[in-house]
């Protein structure tokens, strides 16, 4: 597969917060409609990587980024509209962040901000996204109540619905299951398998088994570098190339 066919292409990405470099020149590609699992212990640069891709890193003062990230062959640092870029990417944070709005308004937030105001269109999007996030049946009768009043697991599914609301091509999930119970986690995992038909998914996770269950390929990051990136079978199989990968997935360190 050539580089041009990759959905996201990262070349020699370096990131420093102040004087401290946290990503030390990594290069890799993400294919269209794959689930890429990103595993690794805390402080290995996983979240920072996501924030570089949708350029929310811009809002952290005193950061320096070098190298390139191309989404659809376009350098994210040179796109004409950073807002359009961000709408192309759905982002789900580790802890659910319900905006202080109603359930409906939370999901309709991005479409409205993009300039969509027809009620019928919004209704359709809200229903579709909530269905995709496996939340519709639980909230369809109280769309006007505050999103922050939902339970933790429901809120997380609400943020997934919201991340889907601007019809992204790429969905980034950053340790989405930290705050939710195993049953809900499983339901969301089923949702992700379904969504993969429509979009590329980057799944950052601390649960190595989650990557094993879902990811087509898995990337093991450690201290700001890629230790190994290969198909999930290889990473979790008998013979990963790097000893550290084997140790990590077997729970020996990290």
């Amino acid at each position: 597969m050539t580089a041009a066919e990759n959905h996201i292409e990262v070349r020699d990405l370096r990131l420093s917060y102040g004087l401290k470099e946290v990503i030390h020149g990594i290069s890799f590609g993400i294919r269209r409609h794959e689930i890429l699992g990103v595993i690794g212990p805390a402080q290995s640069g996983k979240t920072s990587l996501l924030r570089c891709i949708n350029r929310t890193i811009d809002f952290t003062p005193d950061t320096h980024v070098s190298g390139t990230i191309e989404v659809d062959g376009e350098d994210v640092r040179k796109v004409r509209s950073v807002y359009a870029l961000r709408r192309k990417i759905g982002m789900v944070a580790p802890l659910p962040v319900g905006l202080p709005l109603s359930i409906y308004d939370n999901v309709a937030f991005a479409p409205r901000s993009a300039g969509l105001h027809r009620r019928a269109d919004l209704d359709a999007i809200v229903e579709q996204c909530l269905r995709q996030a496996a939340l519709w049946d639980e909230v369809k009768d109280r769309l006007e109540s505050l999103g922050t009043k939902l339970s933790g697991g429901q809120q997380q599914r609400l943020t997934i619905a919201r991340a889907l609301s601007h019809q992204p091509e790429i969905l980034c999930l950053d340790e989405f299951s930290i705050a939710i119970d195993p049953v809900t986690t499983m339901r969301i995992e089923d949702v992700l398998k379904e969504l993969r038909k429509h979009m590329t998914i980057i799944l950052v996770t601390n649960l190595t088994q989650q990557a094993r269950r879902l990811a087509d390929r898995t990337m093991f990051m450690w201290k700001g570098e890629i230790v190994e990136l290969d198909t999930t079978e290889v990473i979790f199989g008998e013979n990963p190339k790097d000893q550290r990968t084997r140790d990590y997935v077997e729970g020996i360190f990290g």
Partner: protein
Amino acid sequence: MFAVRAAKRAPWAVVGEKIIEALVYFCGFSAIVFVLGIFVFVFKEALPIFAHEQFSLTEFLTSSDWYPTSESNKRYGVFAMIVGTASVTVLAMVIAVPFGLGAAIYLSEFCGQKTRETLKIVIELLAAVPSVVWGFIGLTVMSKLIVQYTGTPVGVNVLNGGLILALMSVPIIVSISEDALKAVPDSYREAAIALGVTRWQLVWRVLLPAAKQGLLAAVLLGVGRGVGETMAVLMATGHAVHIPHGVLDSVRTLTANIAAELGEAPAGSDHYRVLFLTGVLLFTLTFAVNLIADTIVRGIRRK
């Protein structure tokens, strides 16, 4: 490991804790005691006026005849001053609220770290200017400017008082609104930005709704300042008992009236008591403003 189980706290630590607990309790309740105390004592001075046959509360509130020292026919109507206070406060808020909120939004969301620090120091300095200095500026600088640009014969009027009061309220509104905006969790900002909104959409659709209680508090503190401010408006409004027909008319406010006349009213006279009654009225007004604010805030919270 067992040392922790066997350990005993020193007696002074146990007693000390009780004392501090009592102190904190006292501090909490003293606020209520003081407020009640002020109300009781001001009201007590005003109360005997109601025993007076000629005095009518309706007339006090609705008449704009204020002749407390007339030989033959003393009349005590503060309606013109209520209008005076209201007009100056409303004008001040019309100017100060958009200006203050705008400044707060700029400080909290748009400007860089260095600019913010500098501006905050300047704004705090502005808040530290004594009100008599503001009054002085109104009386000399502002009044000349108003005469020059509007051609009105008298420069001390509603416009002057409103402008001065706006300048005085802006620092309060800015610093409290900025705190309210800063208190909105950064995760909201990140979440909204990740959804592809512009900075302005972020402010408008997320930050302002999320911070509305704090912002309302800021505005109402501004209103409180406007209603209660005395010295600056006394100097800047012209002190004429008169219902204004435009912003270029002179007015007298409730507070300025008390400040100017209480020293000359013999203790225990009707005049003296009516001035205290004006104090009760002011107290009631600010209480009403706070109550309304509280209700609104609570209403917002319930939703």
